């Protein structure tokens, strides 16, 4: 998958689980927790959405790799390549 397509899909997932954030202000490398007060439920929703969209398993210890948009894209790319 092209990186920009992957990124668009992950951003769309992020907006689905957090419709109350403004994507125009999103900094792709900053932690979602710092930027948007993401809490553990937001993180779980994000991990669930990614796991279901891309049919990948995301063990709990990998959650920190979904902390920011850019990191999430890299993580998903790695998982898809490995699969």
């Amino acid at each position, binding site marked *: 998958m092209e990186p920009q397509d992957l990124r668009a899909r992950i951003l*769309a997932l992020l*907006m*689905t*689980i*957090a*419709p*109350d*954030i*403004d*994507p*125009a*202000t999103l900094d792709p490398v900053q932690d979602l*927790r710092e930027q*948007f*007060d993401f*809490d*553990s*439920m*937001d993180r*779980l*929703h994000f*991990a*669930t959405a990614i*796991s*279901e969209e891309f049919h990948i*398993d*995301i*063990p*709990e210890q990998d959650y920190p790799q979904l902390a920011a948009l850019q990191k999430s894209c890299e993580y998903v790319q790695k998982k898809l390549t490995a699969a």
Partner: protein
Amino acid sequence: MEIEFRLPSLGADMERATLTTWLKKPGEAVHRGEAIAVVETEKGLIDIECFDEGIVSALIVEPGTKIAVGTVLARLTAAGTGVPPTSVPRAAAPATAAAAAAPAVRVPPPPAAPAAAGPAGEAAARLRISPAARRRAQELGLTDAALGRLAAGGMGGIVHIEDIERLAAGGAAAAPAADARDAMRVVIGNAMARAKREIPHYYLGHTIDFAAARSFLQRHNAGVPVAERLLEGILIAKAVALAAARIAGFNGYFRDGRFERAPEVNLGMAIAVRGGGLVAPALLAADRKDLRTLMHEFSELVSRVRSGHMRSGEFTAATITVTSLGEDGVEAIYPIINPPQVAIVGSGCVVERPGVCEGSVAVRPQLTLTLAADHRVTDGRAGARFVCTIAELLAAPEKLR
């Protein structure tokens, strides 16, 4: 039978509201639990749901009107009397007017951009982006900046697909300039000032070993898909709910000079609203539900808070509240009771500390639980029993299922 549909109680310190939008027209059927009107309060827009079945016979209050709690807003013809037989008749229960409806809250979004002024009545429909509307926006190729402006109205309505279409067609989206954050802060401030003024709080703190709970969660979560995983918070919630059902004096309301014990534990879950503010909708009958069900319901609650669609019963039903600041890294929280409730349990973050386990010192995960309770109802001794019961339940998490 005619049913009077009245403005229900909207919680502490909210006695009036302004009707902004009717969601039903005369002649339309209303199903149980359906929202029929939207009102504006200091705490945001609230969907007023109806807990009767029927056909709307008359809308009495005009949008834009400020009304007091208890005002008749509309009349319905009850299901079973002059309505098609397809509608499901409700069991006899002649609901009181106040019980016939209950509010749902739409949480205001963080103001992301300066909002254009617009008529208040227009506010309800277009201030937040639902996932469906967002998908449509993406299909239409709307830029995120355009969506941000649409979402930034400031009072917490929902951006529906129709609004997206209108925006795409070049129509201006009217949005109110009111500062929802400040209004919510006022309501929180009023409720907490009342709590501090009226409730003689006492506080207890108790640090517990969280190893059993943590390994229970790790074991469970390792074996299930992401969607079925549990959070620490839900384990704590379940333990608090069970303890509140067992130990008298913490679950219920203090009203008219006396304590009324609630028959079931509707556990308020304090949820931070992004950008500031707080809501505490309830997990209904949390003492009687298993962890899986509670987790699912909590997940939905948070989603509704995030998307701005809170539901009726949840918003004012809490009989006791749990609040956690674990996410923010503090070890203990000394919370304020949300009146007319009589207790609130706080949990901090799990920290690794030297602790004694089976006679030797080891690094242990520890959690500090706190309780603020109403001295008009209980004493510290009962509070200690309550907190220790929560601790015992968390020490044997397999029994919390």
